[in-house]
């Protein structure tokens, strides 16, 4: 198993004071909090930092952890020493005391050192991958997860597979993370930040015979699309046109989520002209629109013929694009 250098994770020296550790934690927690952070691996970093803080803020755990030294050499496997924890009073007691990480969120490394006496149901959490507590008797806990979805799924519907880590109780009564791959029919028209509720797909922990499992709530975010940008239900597409197409007007082909369409470019268009294609955005009872934003693409003057054409244009048009700058 991989050794975790909690001091490195927190960015503090091994002899850091409690105050320094707390300060480092606060700063990192704000930076990586999944509700505020736009960092790519925010969720994972936030958990890592929470785990490091859990150990370093508790004097007994920190002392025991310090006895492990700097860990094995790179590439070497870490194993807790046989006398691990002897003389320290922490087994299980403190693992649930701070932060808001759910039981199945700690690393294997943490669990092997501090997780021995923990059992499920000790506490609830509102983190995206965690079980909530407070379930009624006979009803399992609800689970919440967050997934990335491609725009095509909401435009056209269809099934997608999501890999989720969800907490479960194993035969020994320990709380473990179970890897589930869910095959989900994505509801057409779902927007970023919205939730798919899958009834009965939550936890059946503690429900006993005849109990109902909890529900699974999947919150979706969109991965960026190569062509379209999303704003609410509306989509935006940048469409390059030639200078003469913009100036004289033209019929051009344009991609839309529903397929390629013929689009009329009005004469006198310029860069940034916005054309609205009604109801070609994200579907709904009142669907979103597709906005086509024109960009003027200039042909390169690489050969004599092109150079000649540009010169002819310059000769024919007395045109100063910088008059508004007073030059």
């Amino acid at each position, binding site marked *: 198993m991989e050794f975790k250098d909690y001091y490195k994770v927190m960015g503090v020296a091994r002899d850091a004071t409690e105050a320094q550790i707390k300060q480092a934690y*606060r700063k990192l*927690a*704000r930076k990586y*909090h*999944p*509700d*505020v952070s736009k960092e790519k691996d925010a969720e994972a970093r*936030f958990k890592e930092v*929470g785990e490091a803080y859990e150990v370093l803020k508790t004097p007994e755990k920190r002392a025991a952890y310090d006895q492990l030294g700097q860990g094995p050499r790179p590439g070497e496997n870490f194993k807790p020493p046989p006398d691990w924890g002897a003389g320290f009073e922490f087994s299980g007691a403190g693992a649930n005391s701070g*932060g*808001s990480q759910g039981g199945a969120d700690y690393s294997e490394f943490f669990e092997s050192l501090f997780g021995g006496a923990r059992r499920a149901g000790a506490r*609830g*959490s*509102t*983190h995206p991958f965690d079980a*909530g*507590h*407070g*379930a*009624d008797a006979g009803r399992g806990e*609800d689970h*919440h997860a967050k997934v990335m979805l491609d725009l095509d799924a909401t435009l056209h519907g269809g*099934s997608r*597979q999501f890999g989720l880590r969800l907490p479960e109780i194993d035969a020994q009564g320990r709380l*473990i*993370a*179970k*890897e*589930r*791959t*869910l*095959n*989900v*029919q994505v*509801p057409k*028209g*779902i927007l970023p*930040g*919205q*939730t*798919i*509720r*899958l*009834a009965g*797909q939550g936890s059946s922990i503690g429900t006993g015979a005849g109990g109902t499992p909890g529900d699974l*709530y*999947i*919150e979706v975010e969109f991965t960026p699309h190569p062509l379209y*940008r*999303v*704003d609410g239900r509306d989509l*935006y597409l*940048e469409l390059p046109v030639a200078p003469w197409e913009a100036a004289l007007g033209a019929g051009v082909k344009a991609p839309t989520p529903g397929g390629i369409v013929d689009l009329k470019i009005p004469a006198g268009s310029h860069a940034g002209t916005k054309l609205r294609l009604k109801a070609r955005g994200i579907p709904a009872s009142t669907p979103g629109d597709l906005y086509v*934003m024109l*960009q003027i693409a200039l042909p390169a003057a690489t050969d004599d013929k092109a150079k000649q054409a540009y010169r002819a244009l310059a000769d024919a048009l007395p045109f100063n694009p910088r008059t508004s700058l007073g030059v």
Partner: protein
Amino acid sequence: MRTVVEGLLSGEIFEDYAVLSVDDLSRLCSVDRTCIVELVEEGVLRVIEVDSAEWRFSGAALRRARAAMRLQKDLEINLPGVALVLELMEELGRVRSELEVQRR
């Protein structure tokens, strides 16, 4: 760790149909009823009127309430602070998507 691949599941968009009570939200957020009431009093959650004596919330309140709870717990922010963070995050989201649209 075990891996299980399962059959096709389908669900609906929670925000489209859900109408939630204070009890629903407190259960789904794993918090006390009073926490939800405080969120309403602070203006973090909006009550929608559906001709009911009891408070009712739209499905979108779930995500907001859970985010509020996380911020409160993880960063030890008080309620007015949470309200401010959520409002600023929304503003930031709007600005970001506008920027996305206008970029290039």
